[in-house]
């Protein structure tokens, strides 16, 4: 399925390879083909060309991001307000019996390690359950 990629005709409507003087590097068709393969998606040439065009246009529209001075900005990867992870200012002393983790004074709950799922029911939703396991096509030669 992915093996015919290299024989596909070149894509139209995508810019030339490489970085420009300023701004972000633009993706080449071969880059996108490789990324599609990594994402386990097989695209026919027409769809590949159309999606490639979309990506180039979308990223071009976001070029203004490259103008922002980010030198003094730390990346924000989750927006939980800083105060919520800190101990409560006026919290009552935590019940030692309930304290299980180092987070016991914060406003976050201690994780519950018990499983929410039943194995048999979980496997009912799988495409190919075999003897209590997930079945997949053979990956090792006999």
């Amino acid at each position, binding site marked *: 399925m992915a093996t015919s990629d290299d024989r596909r005709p070149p894509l139209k409507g995508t810019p030339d390879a490489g970085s420009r003087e300023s701004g972000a590097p633009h993706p080449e068709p071969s880059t996108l083909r490789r990324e599609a393969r990594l994402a*386990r998606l097989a695209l026919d040439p027409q769809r590949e060309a159309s999606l490639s065009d979309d*990506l180039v246009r979308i990223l071009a529209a976001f070029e203004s991001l490259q103008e922002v001075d980010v030198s003094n900005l730390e990346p924000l990867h989750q927006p939980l307000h800083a105060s919520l992870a800190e101990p409560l200012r006026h919290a009552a002393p935590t019940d030692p019996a309930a304290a299980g983790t180092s987070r016991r004074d914060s406003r976050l709950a201690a994780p519950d390690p018990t499983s929410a799922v039943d194995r048999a029911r979980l496997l009912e939703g*799988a495409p190919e359950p075999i003897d209590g396991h997930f079945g*997949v*096509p053979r990956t090792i030669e006999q």
Partner: protein
Amino acid sequence: MSGAHDQLAGDAHDVARRIADGTQSAESTVGAALERARTDPFGCFEALDEEAALERARELDRARSGGASCGPLFGVPIAIKSNICVDGELTTCGSRLLAGHRSIYDATAVERLVAAGAVVVGTTRMDEFGMGSSGENCASGATTNPRTPAGGAARSPGGSSSGSAAAVAAGIVPLALGSDTGGSVRQPAAFCGVFGHKPTWGRVSRHGLVAFASSLDTIGTLARSARDLELALAVMAGPDGRDSTAFERTDLDRELAAPDARDANRPLAGLRLGVFDDSALTDVDPHVLERFTRTLERARELGAELVTVDLPHHRHGVAVYYVLAPAEASSNLARYDGVRYGRRVEAGTSLEDMMTATRTEGFGHEVTRRILLGTHVLSSGFYEAWFDRAARVRRAVADDFAAAFESVDLIATPTAPTTPFTLGEDVDPLVRYRGDALTIPASLAGLPAVSVPVDVEPGRTVGLQLIGPATADLSVLRAAAALRPDSVEATRGAAPGGSVQ
């Protein structure tokens, strides 16, 4: 007016009260909702579970006659977006890939609503995995906006919580759950003429919400009154051992218990309401802007002081979001590989062939586009320029809000820049992405926000968005209640094709 309509009249408060005082039974109420859902011309539902819902309602009736106390949502029929787990129900996320997939447990939010007496009648249609703002990217079909003008072309209900918003607007249920990653509760609320609340990130547990972009995903509520949003929040909020980002609720309980000290005639007295300079709203449709401005005038009459705020990085929100959310999605959606869930497409001889065929055939066009975009911005050579940079600008967006909330209590914007568009329009994806410009920033910063219906006329619906500082969910909801204290009427609507039902 049918008996069914009477049973469902008013908001969730009204319905729960009538059941609790014996005016109507839970069974007849749930039966009325199911009857409306069965004959729903708007395509709100992915699946109904009539037997389970009626059995649950009968259980509640028996409990009540046995003297059991009634929870705040006792007997209230609710609908759940099909990316939120309901034990035994179809949880398809609007995707071909998950056709027929049933949950094996309840999401924490669902568990808590049910414990408060609510009865789940079914799961609703949505844009696939939450990716879309029109309701059209749904494998089982598009939902129609119940507030489509009679004789007019069918309007979009918005998305991605399209079915949940439409079911509330159509009066099938008074309350529904949606999910909001970049505006997916607020924008459909605005389009369908109902209220929609996106809580502070961490206020409501995400356990049982199918992940799209985890650092942005929230479970939110759609309702016909602001007080119902408050009730649902009071039921669902709080810590959860199965979502370690869900925080405790002492502040919420304290505020809920405090007597309402506001002047009934001037409930917004003392509120400093932040608004943008006009130049920041140049892309907003004139009708939306007119209704928005008129509502700000109303806020002023109710005692609010309008203060202009500047959020210098707000304009980068769409770009930041459409880098970060696809990146997270490309990782979260890696789990759909034909091994553990849903549908498998057999192809070739290898495991990789099977996975590739399953994903290629299973995902719709928009989801494929976003997985590719997300894979790209995380790739070596592009990561610094896109993903890392977007995460840093996200910090600037959040910092701007924090600075603004030094001088104002809440910020008001239109929820969406346009009124509902016509279904079936072939538009550039960038046009739709830019339609999220006003809802995305609060998502990036994890802030609570609500959409208040300020025009519910078919085809011309408008929502006003209120955004608050982190954890200030109740301030946001109470300001919404001040702006629109009554419930919005459900609509019998116009069927697809335009004839009035």
